[in-house]
């Protein structure tokens, strides 16, 4: 707006009314021009009608709908994490046990006992694998199974290595 005598476009008046245009010249023109004031008054009336309608629309309270859903989601999210933790602990403890027990027995002179213990460890591995299968069946399919699979594969790999090492002895 360079010329204060020239009426702004209705779109400019709207932007001014919406507090999006901060032009002093425009403001001084609108506040004195009867045509523009008529526009402003009409727009204000429309705004009032809209606000009146929306003020009288029904209200809701959806807190009771959302919060149980969110809490359930959080609980479901925690469950697999605990299972992963359990799997990791079991895997690590079994691997450590397998390594120390077999290496101790490999250096001893009790081959019979060695075979028995190795057989016991193998059985334990079998039970562990069954347990893992059981746990994995109870996991949600969309959960990321990569950590559990990595642990299983590493335990199996470790078992194979240890068995091979023991058999060489």
């Amino acid at each position, binding site marked *: 707006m360079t010329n204060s005598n020239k009426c702004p476009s209705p779109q400019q008046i709207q932007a001014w009314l919406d507090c999006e245009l901060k032009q002093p010249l425009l403001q001084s023109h609108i506040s004195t021009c009867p045509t523009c004031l008529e526009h402003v008054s009409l727009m204000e009336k429309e705004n009032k*009608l809209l606000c*009146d309608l929306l003020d009288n629309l029904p209200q*809701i309270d959806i807190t009771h709908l959302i919060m149980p859903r969110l809490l359930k989601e959080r609980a479901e999210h925690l469950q697999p994490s605990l299972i992963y933790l359990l799997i990791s602990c079991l895997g690590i403890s079994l691997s450590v046990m397998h390594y120390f027990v077999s290496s101790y027995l490999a250096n001893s002179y009790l081959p019979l006992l060695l075979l028995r213990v190795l057989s016991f460890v193998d059985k334990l591995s079998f039970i562990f694998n069954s347990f893992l299968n059981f746990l994995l069946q109870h996991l949600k399919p969309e959960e990321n199974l990569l950590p559990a699979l990595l642990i299983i594969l590493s335990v199996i790999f470790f078992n194979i290595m240890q068995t091979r090492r023991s058999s060489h002895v």
Partner: protein
Amino acid sequence: MEAQPTDNDLLKQVHLGQKEAFVVLIQRYQQQAYKLALVILQNTADAEDAVSEAFYKAFKALPNGENNTNFKSWLLKITYHCALDILRKRKSQTKMIEKTMIEKTTFNSTLSSIDSLEDILKQETRQEVWTALKKLAPDERTALILKYYQETSYEEIAVIMNWPIGTVASRLYRAREKLRNSLKEVLT
């Protein structure tokens, strides 16, 4: 009087595990989100679903409140998209069961408890405004509500609606013009 915590304070609390803070956010913005969804969907049940879904999505992707996030705009944007999703699903359904429309549930229920002639006239005016609003496209309705009810700036509308900022003023103007044409009798 104790000062109300800001949205960013509440977001930080939610991140620290205080779920009650999210309840405060829900209570603070649920009416605004609901009215926006209602204007787009024109159905109370669908609007409730859209708002519920919007808050659920908001919680799952909650900003941490560190970067002065405008939670209101962000939530309204999610609500807008959830409402549009429902609208799209509704359109794709070949056999759409006519659900209870807003004017039946809202206006008729309150009409019974109206005493004075002035109230009845007001009610009729609201009915006409609602009918005029229904004639607009969903995005035009949304822009009007965001600007004149939620008092959102053009910049925020541009973010919520994913429009260039220059387009906001022209589309708002066009929507108002259509509304004005439909409401000629009420406005004169």
